[in-house]
């Protein structure tokens, strides 16, 4: 039962690019309360380094752990202070502003119950809502929606949208709208770097070609667009393109969701967080990506307009990264990380963390930030208090075998 949205303009089509998946239904119980809540879930694929996004500057072991790669409140590019213990990556001023306006919450040292560090399995657990990998049929967001809607209202003839890439988190029995891309996300710099790495050993001639491409991207990022031919500019997939893509994708999704007749729940995914080499938390590659993400959050706020006060954006990743920096100035797959909540509906301005500490004995398997908060608790808190999904459904259908994981209370005012 897809609703009749206006024919999207070209600009919207480009931006939506198949990343917005949403239902056209208003959650019934919330409606009865006179509310009209919006929920947007952003999946950050690749395992985001939570310690780079929000650094525990108050932990005495922090500098020891990361050395000159540690984000601090001092130095050339100081972090943005949060609560005295944590500092936010300076690439995220919008999130910082929202935090200060009590419209953002960070959950730290959190993770799904998955601990084996495979991206695919980790993403399956994150998005399916199951406690273990191997369930990749339906996602928790879809099942949550099915739980709050009377079955009769869900038109089962309406097949899943034939979008090119429906994130698992929204796949399932409830019908989904999607926008098929006219264009796709810019070629990922991360993929390019991995290929160069692969080619360097096996096929130096091909490596040189891709290095040329990478050089072009950096040239573009540095603003030297005049040095490029129009054809080169066309091909470019530089930082500017990533920023624009993140912001437009999220912003356009928000505009659809802000409409009175628009969908109320949406999901999208951003790739590229797997920073094994030259992570660049401050001013480097990860810093740039975090900046793009910050722009996407701001674009949602703008796109939602007055509906922002009834909005929550949830940003989650499959797991965190090693506490230590590795030999390539990057970080490897880990466990505990950060989840972000932003939106006018929140009672924000807080970092939720049962801080495990950073001494070697504190780390999970002596390498990862220990996950002391089950991510499902946070997600359950959002679904229960924002969309009014009932506790029983949360503990069984939506996050199976999670009865022991109590929903986080007090996220909303």
């Amino acid at each position, binding site marked *: 039962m897809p609703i009749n949205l206006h*024919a999207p*303009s*070209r600009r919207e*089509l480009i931006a939506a690019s*198949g990343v917005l998946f949403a239902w056209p239904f208003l959650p019934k119980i919330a409606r009865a309360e006179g509310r009209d809540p919006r929920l947007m879930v952003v999946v950050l*694929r*690749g*395992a985001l380094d939570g310690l780079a996004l929000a650094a525990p500057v108050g932990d005495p072991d922090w500098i020891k752990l990361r050395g000159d790669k540690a984000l601090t409140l001092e130095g050339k590019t100081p972090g943005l202070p949060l609560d005295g213990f944590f500092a936010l990556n300076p690439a995220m001023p919008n999130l910082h502003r929202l935090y200060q306006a009590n419209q953002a919450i960070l959950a730290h040292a959190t993770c799904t119950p998955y601990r084996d560090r495979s*991206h*695919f399995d980790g*993403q399956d657990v994150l998005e399916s809502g199951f406690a273990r990998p191997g369930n990749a049929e339906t996602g928790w967001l879809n099942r949550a929606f099915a739980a709050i809607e009377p079955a009769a209202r869900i038109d089962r003839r309406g097949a899943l949208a034939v979008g*090119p*890439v*429906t994130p*698992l988190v929204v*796949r399932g029995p409830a019908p989904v709208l999607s926008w098929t*891309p*006219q264009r*796709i*996300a810019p*070629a*990922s710099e*991360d*993929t*390019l770097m*991995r*290929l160069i*790495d*692969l*080619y360097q*050993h*096996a*096929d130096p*001639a*091909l490596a040189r*070609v*891709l290095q*040329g*491409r990478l050089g072009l991207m950096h040239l573009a990022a540095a603003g030297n667009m005049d040095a490029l031919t129009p054809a080169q500019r066309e*091909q470019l997939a530089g930082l500017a393109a990533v920023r624009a893509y993140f912001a437009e994708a999220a912003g356009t999704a928000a505009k659809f969701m802000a409409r009175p007749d628009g969908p109320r729940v949406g999901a999208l995914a951003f*790739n*590229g*967080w*797997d920073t*094994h080499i030259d992570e660049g938390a401050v001013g480097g590659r990860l810093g740039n990506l975090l900046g793009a993400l910050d722009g996407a959050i701001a674009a949602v706020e703008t796109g939602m307009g007055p509906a922002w006060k009834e909005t929550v954006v949830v940003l989650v990743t499959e797991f965190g990264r090693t506490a230590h920096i590795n030999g390539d100035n990057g970080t490897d797959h880990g466990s505990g990380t950060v989840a972000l909540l932003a939106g006018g509906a929140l009672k924000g301005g807080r970092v939720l963390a049962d801080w495990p500490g950073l001494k070697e004995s504190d780390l999970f398997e002596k390498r990862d930030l220990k996950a002391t908060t089950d991510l499902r608790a946070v997600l359950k808190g959002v679904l229960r208090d924002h969309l009014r999904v009932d506790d029983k459904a949360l503990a069984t259908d939506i996050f199976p075998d999670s009865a022991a994981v109590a929903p986080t209370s007090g996220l909303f005012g």
Partner: protein
Amino acid sequence: MSTMSTDPKYQAALALHRFGLGPKPGSIDAIASDPRGALLAELERPGVGLVFDASLMTASKSSMAAFNFRQEQMAKRIALQAEKTAMANATPAAVAAGEDPAKLGPVKPHAESNKADAKAGDEADNKSAKPAKPPEPNVQQRIFRNEARAHFIAANTAEIGFVERLVWFWSNHFCVSADVVPYMAGGYEREAIRPHVLGRFADMLAAAESHPAMLIYLDNFRSVGPKSVAGLIGKVGLNENFAREILELHTLGVRSGYTQDDIIAFAKVLTGWTILPAATNPEHGSEFVFNPRLHEPGPQTIMGKVYAEVGVNQGRAVLADLARHPATATHVATKLARHFVADDPPPALIKTLEQRFRDSDGDLKEVAKALVAAPEAWDAPPTKLKRPNEWLTALRRAMPDMQANVVQGLQARARLGEPLWRPPAPLGFSDVQGPWADGLAQRLDIAEIVATRVEATVDPKDLLETTLGPLASSDTRRAVARADSRQQAIALALMAPEFHRR
């Protein structure tokens, strides 16, 4: 590599990439017991290399249908113009009631219409906002797309694809361009190339050079002998282009001993090889015809031999001799070895193929068998960079469930620099790495688009096994395993060095 080369599974995967169009799910195992035998068996399959599609018209009929379509459009335009002129003299109310001229769409001038309309399918890269449902393709677009579809299906469904690769090779050797003959290019491949890929070179040569598509592409249809009936009454003259390209590209090869005088004499021989004009013959327009009024009379001497034959047989006699010339054997053997094995092919392999070509009087099935039997064809390291269409086809075959339509297939080929049936020059698309390596960045764009499209249904590890199996290096396996998303893992597998090289 050499340690692996005795592994039958490795040989099977190599065979599928080097001689075929890439593995489909299960292909590697299916031929692992006898990769060489499987290649040879494909050569013997009845009907192999041919396209059976009753909906396709001959090249000439397609050309006529396109011609008639344009005539109708023009008639409509003229009628409309007359109506407008009439209305301009009438009341404003009458104008308002009239048909909106924009509804009929612009009609392009005749000379340009061929090019522009045929390109519409594959190169209008949707830079502008397109409505969700594109307009129904017109007759001209349908002809090109149906031919392209048949070409794609032949490649996607072939068991191994060895014979299709031969079709592609010969289609490129005797290339025409859809920029010049948009409605004949597909029919040309079916009529002049496919029936002969496992037949005699002399027959393919004769079929190609007498095909209307070739006669238009290389300008011979209007070549006039100076002393022919038409020439004597002042019709424009001799065109050397066709004769030169036959000698240089299709048979002997460049700098193989022929002179400018040979070219002129050969061009005279070929005068009269033309097509029936579409406008004057609604039944048989655009078909090949020998027109004696254009033909230069008298014997001609080419490379020291006098050709005294009369009429069309004079040209046939020259072509038959060219097909048997030793330089042709060398030329063809070198190109085949370069195409299948290495940019700098092993001399021993060239020698083998050349010898077989000569001994068998240009029997191309025998030459193909000699290629499969030659140890050099298997022992050479995988250095050949696949051409874009080989890469795209291998990708398609590895993921048969992927949704993709003809227009997308055409767009992808154009984007990677190898638009279907549109070589930049009569030389055809290059068969060495140089011109193609820079396109790798564009291949990454395509790989990412494809990966995004299939990530929900394709398992990267399965993909790697399906399409590379034992060819995949440990580095490649590690890179795919460590990817940060399924989408990235699929893109990396499709961009693996072993998937580009064969």
